[in-house]
């Protein structure tokens, strides 16, 4: 259970986030929407203490995250950055890196076990021993998600996990994320731009405008009025074969 209370952040005198309040239940997938530059990534970084928020709290299971050390935060929150660097490291070792916050001086049998389990769960056996600089974008993204999973976190934050991926990989990755959230009761917060995909996979939405939450709730909050106000673009919201679709008009 993640609770964000009154979270605020400034770059110098420029206020990026004003006072953001929201909560995510275990197993719930929340998508943060909003135009470029409204502070979506900043919000994720503040939640994870990668950026020190200027105001407010982040509570995980009732514990104030900002009073904890980095390792302790990493045991509770997994973070999948927008970009992962590659190198001559096997996918297995890249995932094993997720055990970092829990490693003592050495890798223990337990660490290897959980990595093996996660590799199997995500169907990565075939590429586990390949160097990550030989992987495709979608495969690399799965490795990054697996790395966050072996942290055994209660919450996973993902910064635009589907950018730079083709349609099949986008669907694949979002299926994976949603599956994990439901199966393991992990709260997931992710940012993305594709509202139609978000409508398929999200339980709840957080729409950010000028550093503030403009709207918050289930799929019902995605209305033509909200989208037009936030993105400055007139749209229709239609149902087609059971899917809600946002279609730009004019």
């Amino acid at each position: 259970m993640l609770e964000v209370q009154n979270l605020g952040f400034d770059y110098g005198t420029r206020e990026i986030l004003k006072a953001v309040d929201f909560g995510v239940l275990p197993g719930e997938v929340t998508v943060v929407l909003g135009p470029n530059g409204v502070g979506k990534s900043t919000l994720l970084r503040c939640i994870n203490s990668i950026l020190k928020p200027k105001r407010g709290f982040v509570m995980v299971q009732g514990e104030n995250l900002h009073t904890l050390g980095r390792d302790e935060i990493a045991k509770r929150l997994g973070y999948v950055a927008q970009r992962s660097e590659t190198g001559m490291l096997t996918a297995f070792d890249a995932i094993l890196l997720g055990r970092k916050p829990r490693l003592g001086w050495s890798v223990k049998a337990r660490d290897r076990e959980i990595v093996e389990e996660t590799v199997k769960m995500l169907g990565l056996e075939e590429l586990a021993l390949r160097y990550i600089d030989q992987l495709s974008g979608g495969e690399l993204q799965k490795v990054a998600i697996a790395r966050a999973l072996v942290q055994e976190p209660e919450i996973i934050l993902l910064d635009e996990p589907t950018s730079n991926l083709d349609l099949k990989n986008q669907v694949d990755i979002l299926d994976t994320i949603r599956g994990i959230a439901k199966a393991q009761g992990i709260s997931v917060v992710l940012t993305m731009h594709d509202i139609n995909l978000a409508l398929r996979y999200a339980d709840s939405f957080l729409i950010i405008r000028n550093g503030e939450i403009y709207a918050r709730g289930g799929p019902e909050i995605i209305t033509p009025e909200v989208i037009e106000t936030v993105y400055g673009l007139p749209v229709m919201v239609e149902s087609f074969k059971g899917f809600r679709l946002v279609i730009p008009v004019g």
Partner: protein
Amino acid sequence: MDQTKTAGMNKANESGLKLAGDTFSSAYSRYIGRKFTFIFLSILLLILLFLHSIAVGAADVSVTDVARVLLGEDLGNSNTIIWQIRLPRALTAIVAGVGLSVAGASLQSILRNPLGSPYTLGISHAAAFGAAFSVIVLGSGTMRSTGADAVMLNNPYITTTVAFLFSMLTTFILLAIAKYKGASPEVMILTGVALSSLFTAGTMFLQYFADDVQLAAVVFWSFGDVGRADWGDLAIISAVVLPSMLYFYLNCWNYNAIDAGDETAKGLGVDVEKIRLWGMLVASLVTSFIVAFLGVIGFVGLVCPHISRRFVGDDQRFLLPASCLVGGLLLLGSDTAARMLMEPHVLPVAILTAFMGAPLFLYLLVRGFRH
């Protein structure tokens, strides 16, 4: 929470996947085993090269005699040659090679730049400037010939101390800029380039006003040579290199995390700025000591980590030890070759490493840096 999750995972994996999982797991064990084999073979090779290096020279001593002397037997003349000349020289080559290479490997990781090395950050150039300053301005560099073994500075300690002070000054400038501008890889490498040109300019300026004896002393100093160190110098260098090696190794998971990107590393609980700053400080310290005592030995810190990468990949758990071994092997091998090539003249090892380093570097460049 953790336990319930794990139980769930185990349950999901109980059926059918067991066999496939075992083969995949043993494949990984074999893969790790290969890396250990490389490290083991390198250690073996280093021991053999070490014995060979002590055996060869103007007065030939057999490898068995070397072993006997090292085990404490008294073989008269051979004892003096081995204990006083060849052993400190060979050990200095190994320790300096290890130090420069491990400093390079860690800098390449924490600066996330394949060009990271003590040389690139301007530390070596600063030391060379310090030596020039000491010889020309402080007059520490009148030379005298010692007959058999090339030439020596008449006051090596002042030269060494000033060289050390200047390389540490550079380190502090680098750290101050890192603190002020953030220790991003770009900022650090560009600062290194700027400082290198500044100190090179300073050295040229001093050399222009030097007389021919001073000029010769400065040039002599700048040829890195492991034969310059006696047991005392070796002890000082080792006292810095060995703990630093341990420090870098204890940080191998932090460096693996930083290799995955700053944000990912922070998400994994790594204090990236702190690790980067300390890593730079330790790497600079190691380089400063080595360069101050031995002179500038280029390319070892740059090339050895890349050679090691070809064998063990980027995983710092293996890359750091492998770099240490390859560094020791390369510098000891080069020094042995430098002693043999133009017998009875002994070439400073830096000339040879530069000759070998450049083609190696170009080869790696053409094959593509993988970092």
